[in-house]
Structure formats: structure tokens, C-alpha cells
């Protein structure tokens, strides 16, 4: 069965890296996994061989029995493909040639989110993959991406355009003259050329709404199915924890399958590792002075972070929490992902597929 795993969290919490590492963990489990990244840092892009322009999935070689693929989201390319699929002959080309089009794809809230779920759906139905791992765009509210198909429908079906340009019924006729007047005033402010482009763009978008609505329903079906699981990524900071709590609550309220919290870059816990390796506390007197002072600082931080994260699990119920500890120095490249994958492994990944579908093991 094909599965999808979606990582959500505030910007800057390490979502992209965590998503990539969890894909590595799945590949180590023997799955054929593809990770769709949104805006990887340069080093991660190099590691995943994603510094090229295309949005095709590429195979990443590494010491795992499964297959790891990586793809980068290019919202404009995906949108062009969507338009070609839904549009009449020539319609997509006219829209793509409109100078306002590219501007809109970057600036309209929800478009890159929609393109992410569109790509998620495409990769999910691709027979080459057993699991799709999705890193989500940095939205002001990460949850926006769940509603993005509907938002795009509303955009294509813009009421303003209908009011201003399509006065097909008598009721709208008078509103339309007010609309034209408004456009003239807007044109005075922003320039006639821009208004012309917008008007032409919306005229060209005409008739696409039904196709978009059908597709939105189909994609909505995947996002709400139990085969699509969600994970929250946070750091131990009040802002990111508050955002994770809010996202988690919204997902749970919608009945979506949230399966874990990843607490990324938490303070290293030295006392715990010491307790595990020792029977009797012998070296106490030796570690007074600067070493004790240093340990006390890190211990206080660990306690503060633990309290903060406890509030998160309290708010969201019994979810497994994976603590990824901050390192003194981060490993580089593929090694970093493999190392992180090891830490993410304790939470059960979506089950690897039937063994018969696997390529022969490499070792």
C-alpha cells in the first residue's frame, strides 16, 4: 500500500532536513521512498543531488537496501502542467505567456502550497514509489496547505473578475460598471499595463474552475485518508512549540492521522547518559569547579526545554516524541542524514511494502 508522510512546523525548525532523514530511515527499512523538498539549503540540495533546475525525482545512492529518491518542488512548473491538463488547447500557453502569471504564482497565498499537494498526489500515484515524504512550504500558518486546493479554486473563480468582466446576468450589469470604474482608478495607481494583464489573465482562466474543483476533491481525499500521516516538527522554543501545538490541534480536530512529534535540536542531556553508564556516582569531587558549573548550565536548559515540550504533549495527547539532540558539530552531507535517520527510526515508519516489490538487496 502506498503511503504519504507530511512534515509540518514553523519555518527554521529543520523540517526539510528531518523530512530527508526520515526518507533515509525508510530506505534503510527497504522502502522505495521519494522525498519532496521545498526549499532545501544548498548543502542539503547538493547531498540530494537537487541543485539542477528540473522537478523530476532523482535517485540518491547510499548504503541502504531500499531506494531513496528526491525531488524539489518548482511551483511554476507544476502549475504549468496543471493548466495544460485542465485547459483547452492554447489556453495554458496564453496563461503562461501572461507577464502577470508568474508574479501571481509567487505572490498569491496558497499557490505554492497547492502545488506541493498536487506534486504529493502525483508522486503518491507513481508506481515507482511506496512512500512519499513531503516537506511543506514555510507558510505563515502551515495548516494553510491543507486548504490550498479550495483556495486555488476560489482564486480561479474570483468573484471580482466575474463582477467586473463577465456581466452575463442583469443583476451584475450595474455592479460591472462600478467595477470598470474601480479598475480605472486602480490603473491610475498601479499602471494600465498591469491591470490589462490581470484582466486578460482572468479571461484566460475562464472555464478552468470545474477541472480545478474536481482535482481539489481528489487531492483532498488523499490528504484526509489514513494513508496520509502527519508529523509535527518543532524546536524547544516557545514560538515554535506554540505553532506546533496549534497545527497539531487543527490536524487532530480534522480527524487527520498525526503520528509523532519531532523535537529537533534539543539541548543534549548529559545527566541521562551518565545515569545509563554508571552504577555508583564516584567522580563527584573531581568534577567540581568549571566542569560542574558548565554541566549545571546545560542541565538547567534541558529542564526548561523538557517543561516546554511536556506542555506540547499535554496539549496534543499521547503522541510519541522523538528528541533529536543538538550536536556539538553537525556531520556533513549524506552522513548527517544517515546519523539523523538513526535517531528518527524509533518511531515506526509507514510499513515497508510487500517484499516481492523490492529490488534485490545490495548486501
Amino acid at each position: 500500500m502506498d503511503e504519504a508522510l507530511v512534515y509540518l512546523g514553523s519555518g527554521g525548525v529543520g523540517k526539510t532536513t528531518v523530512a530527508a532523514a526520515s526518507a533515509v530511515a525508510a530506505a534503510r527499512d527497504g522502502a522505495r521512498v521519494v522525498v519532496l523538498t521545498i526549499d532545501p539549503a544548498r548543502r542539503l540540495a547538493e547531498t540530494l543531488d537537487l541543485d539542477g533546475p528540473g522537478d523530476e525525482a532523482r535517485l540518491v545512492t547510499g548504503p541502504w537496501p531500499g531506494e531513496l529518491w528526491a525531488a524539489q518542488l518548482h511551483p511554476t512548473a507544476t502549475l504549468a502542467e496543471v493548466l495544460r491538463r485542465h485547459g483547452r488547447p492554447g489556453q495554458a500557453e496564453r496563461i503562461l505567456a501572461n507577464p502577470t502569471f508568474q508574479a501571481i504564482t509567487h505572490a498569491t497565498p496558497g499557490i505554492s502550497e497547492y502545488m506541493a499537494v498536487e506534486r504529493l498526489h502525483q508522486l503518491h500515484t507513481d508506481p515507482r514509489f511506496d512512500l512519499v515524504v513531503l516537506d511543506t512550504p514555510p507558510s505563515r500558518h502551515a495548516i494553510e496547505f491543507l486548504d490550498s486546493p479550495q483556495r486555488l479554486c476560489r482564486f480561479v473563480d474570483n468573484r471580482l473578475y466575474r463582477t467586473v468582466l463577465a456581466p452575463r446576468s442583469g443583476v451584475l450589469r450595474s455592479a460591472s460598471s462600478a467595477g470598470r470604474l474601480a479598475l480605472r482608478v486602480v490603473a491610475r495607481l498601479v499602471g494600465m499595463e498591469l491591470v490589462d494583464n490581470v484582466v486578460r489573465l482572468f479571461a484566460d482562466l475562464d472555464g478552468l474552475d470545474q477541472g480545478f474543483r474536481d482535482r481539489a476533491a481528489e487531492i483532498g481525499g488523499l490528504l484526509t485518508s489514513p494513508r496520509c500521516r502527519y508529523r509535527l516538527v518543532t524546536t524547544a522554543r516557545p514560538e515554535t512549540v506554540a505553532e506546533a501545538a496549534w497545527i497539531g490541534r487543527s490536524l487532530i480536530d480534522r480527524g487527520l492521522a498525526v503520528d509523532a512529534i519531532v523535537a529537533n535540536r534539543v539541548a543534549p542531556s548529559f545527566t541521562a547518559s551518565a545515569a545509563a553508564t554508571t552504577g555508583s556516582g564516584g567522580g563527584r569531587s573531581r568534577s567540581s569547579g568549571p566542569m560542574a558549573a558548565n554541566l549545571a548550565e546545560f542541565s538547567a536548559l534541558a529542564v526548561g526545554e523538557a517543561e516546554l515540550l511536556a506542555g506540547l504533549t499535554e496539549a496534543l495527547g499521547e503522541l510519541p516524541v522523538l528528541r533529536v539532540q543538538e550536536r556539538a558539530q553537525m556531520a556533513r552531507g549524506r552522513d548527517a542524514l544517515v546519523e539523523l535517520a538513526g535517531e528518527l527510526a524509533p518511531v515506526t515508519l509507514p510499513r515497508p511494502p510487500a517484499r516481492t516489490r523490492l529490488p534485490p538487496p545490495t548486501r
Partner: protein
Amino acid sequence: MGKTTVGASVGVAAARSGLDVLLVELEGDSHLGRPFGAGQLGYAATELERFDGGGRLRARHLTAREAMRQYLDAGGINRITERLPRTGLVDLVTSAAPGLADLVLLGKIRQLEQRGEADLIVVDAPASGHAVGFLMAPRGLARTAASGPVRHQADLALELLADQARCQVTLVTMPEEGPVSEVIETGFALEDEVGVRLGPLVVNGCLAAVDGLAEAVAQAPARPRGAGAASLAAARFRLERLASQADQTARLARELPLPQVRLPFLFTPGVDRAGLDRLAAALAVAPAVPSAAAPSPTATPAATATEAVV
């Protein structure tokens, strides 16, 4: 990188020195008000704190939508568009001309500056990936609009950005590889493409050295037990961290020739009011830190300085 926290600390330092400071938040939910016991900020200013010596700190959350609505209203759209779905119009115009929303926000900030709303306006700008685009918006629009109100707004914003006495950008980073690479890129992009004055570079979250720690580690038994093992592991962690931090700040100094102000790592999960004071104190003693130095209110009583924290 903690730019919101650094911006608030710059504000505290300036207000403590007697200035009337306005913090401007552009992206919602920054929790800027939290250390001051204030909730979500609104479009209108909220007073956060008054200081001995006459300084005060206020904050407001400017949104592109509200600024754009005001701009369109001022342009006479209001009377005509009463029967139209207004938010639809604003959204459409905003999304069709990217940069226009940014320009309108910069215009709003400039308006606050011109009205003398505060001695110092500290803007929590978009994060580095978007900061260049935000500050480039007037240049882009000035290029496409030969005349008209947009061109006029763009010219005014460019004038503000280029005026070294009125405006500077403070870059915030952390002493780690990724953030350092990013801030170097952003710094050059801002200098080359926006031509804005760059203030000192704030390196946030710098671990302090602990006297005698390296010696203590050298003298520690190779395989300590119990608390000794934990102390040794923690000490090694800190020393390794300090070494990599020194490498990164040295690389930063080499590749981005700006004075650095180092702020301490606070060992708390968030930064509370006391934490802001510690950061503000570190900013206040650093030479050439904008908040205290740039808007010298005694020298130019009417002048307002604007500072964007990136």
C-alpha cells in the same frame, strides 16, 4: 536566528537610553509582545513599557493588506468600490504586482518616520531569504513604473533606504555554518542590490567560554563515573562548540567585513523580559550599535531613524 528577539533587545537598549522606540512587526505571531506581558499586537501601536529617563517602547503589527487598503482608500478607491468585494480587489492588486505589497509596507514605515511617530523605528523584517526581495521592491517597481503614484512611492522608499542618516539594516545570525553562509549571501545582496547601509552584524547565541574548562578536561580521569562522566561529556560538548563557533565567527569576519556584536547564549528555551535586558546590555556596550548611537536625538532633534532587523 532570533531576529525578533534581537530587534526587541535593540528597542529595549534604545528606550533605556531615553528614546521613544516603535517596534514594527511585519509577520504575525512573532510573540514580540510576550516578554512584556502583551498579547497579539494589532495594527495600532501598543505600549509595551515605559523607562526611567523618559524612554518608552511601543509595538505594532503592520499588515500588507491593511496598509494596501489605506493606500487604495487614499487614492480614492473607497468611494467607488463600495459595491465590490473589497478584499477581493485588494488581494488581486496585491498579488498581481508582487512588490507592491512590500512597497506599500515600506511606504507606511516611511510615513511613520516622517510624522515623527518615534525617535527610532525598529522593523522586524522578513527572514533572510525574503529580506532582499522586500527591500528590493521599490527598485523593481521604480524600474517598471515610469511615472504615477507607484513611481512616486517607490522613489520615496528608495530615498529612505539610501539615506544613511535615516536608515540602516542590522543583520542577525548565529555562529553556525548554515546561518553564517546565509548571512554572508544576504549581506552582499543587500549591499549590491539595495545599497542600504549595513549596521554592525549581530551574532546571536554565542556560548561564553568557561575559565579553566579546558584545563579541567585535560586533568579529568579518562573514564570517570557518575556525575563525573556527565560533567566531562558536557565540558567536551562546550569546548567543541566553542571551537566551531570560533571557526564560524572568524569565517564571518573574513568574508563579511562588518563589525560584529556578539550576544550571549542564554541557556533558556525562550527569552523573557530579564533575558531581553541581558541582550540589551550587551548591545548597549558595543560600539556603533545603531539603537544607541545612530539616531542621536540631541544632535538632530527632529530626525527619526529606521532600522530593519534582518
